[in-house]
């Protein structure tokens, strides 16, 4: 047993991180936030070129994918990253970045599709299987003010049946892997929130000293780090198990564990990051709000943490 990153895994993560740091600084990532959040296709292609969408087709596993997605989450890169990655196994062009693939999970009280205007394909995920839809054939109403300005949302009326591309078993695996990859994005959000809050706590002075020297502030940051590190163990464990190097007898339950921890932690770290920033945290300018908003978006993907907490109990 060795539940630490090996040299190859570390090199892969470092590589993705330095690529993203160079090509996806926050100002680039948020460039379209005032103009509807349309995806920048050349940048999407660059993501594909480093293998973000095709990792598992290129001989890598869920572990490597999770390490890459953790970095994507940290960078706040927007777009249907998980859906496109998962669709790469059955849609030509998803892996190489020439087709952007979104997802519809029929849900209550409304069914939402994200990034509708930027999509080439939509995968409809239902209990009985996976189905391919043409985004142009959907009747949608796009919100002028999405919660996360980088995640445009549209309600979908009358979801069509589409063309079957996977059976019920494949739908289970699709959701399961989607939970774990989303968990990795959420882990990245936690880490970015901590970095931002830490930097502010070191630099901002009140009462003649950095606010990070006050225990009340320290304890908020300690709680963020604590939750992030437990989340990391959960997400990595789910990935290792999916790759067949674990001891879990129920991969869906293990994926749920990851999604519950990651969902709760990302929202917690996002809101605590805002709190550490005080009044500035409530401004548009400071990025704290962006982490919290993205955390709220991702919690709804593949079932939120409440949903999975109940499902986890039902499987006991």
């Amino acid at each position, binding site marked *: 047993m060795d*539940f630490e990153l090996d040299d190859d895994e570390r090199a892969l993560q470092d590589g993705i991180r330095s690529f993203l740091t160079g090509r996806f600084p926050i100002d680039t990532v948020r460039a379209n936030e005032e103009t509807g959040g349309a995806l920048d296709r050349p940048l999407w292609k660059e993501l594909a070129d480093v293998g973000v969408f095709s990792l598992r087709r290129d001989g890598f596993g869920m572990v490597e994918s999770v390490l890459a997605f953790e970095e994507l989450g940290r960078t706040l890169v927007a777009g249907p990253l998980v859906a496109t990655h998962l669709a790469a196994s059955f849609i030509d062009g998803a892996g190489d970045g020439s087709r952007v693939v979104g997802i519809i999970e029929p849900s209550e009280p409304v069914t939402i599709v994200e990034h509708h205007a930027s999509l080439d394909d939509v995968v409809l995920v239902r209990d009985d299987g996976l189905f391919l839809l043409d985004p142009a054939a959907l009747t949608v109403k796009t919100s002028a003010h999405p919660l996360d300005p980088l995640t445009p949302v549209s309600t979908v009326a009358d979801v069509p049946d589409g063309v079957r591309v996977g059976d019920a078993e494949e739908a289970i695996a699709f959701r399961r892997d989607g939970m774990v990859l989303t968990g990795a994005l959420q882990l990245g959000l936690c880490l970015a929130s901590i970095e931002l809050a830490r930097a502010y706590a070191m630099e901002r002075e009140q009462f003649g000293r950095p606010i990070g*020297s006050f225990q009340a502030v320290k304890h908020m940051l300690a709680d963020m780090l604590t939750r992030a590190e*437990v989340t990391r*163990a959960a997400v990595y464990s789910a990935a290792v198990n999916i790759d067949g190097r674990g001891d879990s007898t129920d991969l869906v339950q293990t994926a749920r564990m990851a999604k*519950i921890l990651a969902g709760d932690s990302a929202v917690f770290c996002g809101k605590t990051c805002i709190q550490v920033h005080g009044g500035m945290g409530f401004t548009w300018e400071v990025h704290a709000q962006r982490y919290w908003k993205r955390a709220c978006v991702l919690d709804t993907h593949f079932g939120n943490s409440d949903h999975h907490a109940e499902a986890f109990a039902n499987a*006991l």
Partner: protein
Amino acid sequence: MDLQFTEQENSFRHDLRDWLATAIPLMPAEPERNDWAARRAYDTTWQRMLFDAGYAGINWPKEFGGLGASPTEHLIFLEESERARAPYVGHNFVGLLHAGPTLVTEASPEQKAFHLPAILRGDHVWCQGFSEPGAGSDLASLSCRAIRDGDDYVITGQKIWTSFGHNADYCEMLVRTDTDVPKHRGITWLIVPMGLDGMDVRPLRTMEGSTEFCEVFFDEVRVPVANRVGAENDGWRVAMVTLSFERGTAFVSELLQSVELAHDLAALAKKITRNGVPAWEDAGLRRDLGRMCAELDALWALTKRNVSQAQRTGLVGPGGNVFKLSYAELRQRLGDLAMHLLDRASLSIDDVGDLPTHAHVHGRIHALSLGIAAGTSQVQRNIVAERILGLPKDR
């Protein structure tokens, strides 16, 4: 990353499992909670059985009689022992996990030769004299005084939270040997035989009703200078060396017990009715319990990360603080859920009717100690913030 065990680790597990299956039935029934003489005999009998089978001092180096097992094998040892419901380390805790490892690195050859085999065999029970009424979170401010007089130190002062103090043979003790230097630099580490003239051990009853803890009073107690470990005034460093023996396995038994308790709660909720229907029909209760079970599984995963870290570097690192903080709070939430589920049945620590009240209520009380013992959650948060995140110290 790989969560699968090697062939060697698997064979260690299977041999251990076979041995536990034959050894545990040979043990007598577990004694009453506060019958300390009987409990000492029980705990040391088990230790002797471990010794005879070659499992004593699992993490101690081979040259000092230990098994020299890897952190992963230590994890397996604790996991298998818990699953087989083997006796706990009990009275042997301080000797095996605290004083012994310290002696291994810091003691003289004579001290090692006398003490180490006796700890491994279960012949000597050790206790710890570190904390004082005035020195808890700020341990280095301890004031129990030791004044040099010829070949002796003369000790006057008080220690507290000394587990098994009334039953121990030796005490690992921190004393103040210099009052004129910064607090960390005037402390000395001593081996103190129990029962010396001028020593008074008084049981300290906890909110559980247990008298495991003691207060120990010293009135001019004479201890030979030869009992010193390390140099005079170097005791703080010696005590810190002990912490480096932690390999991420400190809470394995606790955690696995809590996982089992959480699963028992699900079964209990299916049995207990509210308004005529099983409590399990309450989706809120299921969500709460489901979330806690997922978090317990995540802490098991974190344990494996910490053990892997220790295996690679010899140190657990920040994961140890992270684990303790998370577990202390999670265990309390689990206890609260149990109390709510049991409702008025939780008013008895003894089992009520056919309900397993004791396990849940006693467990709830015990959980209150987890955020206090071995560094309060607030001190843990300071450590995480200052040592891991690098936030400025507030002095």
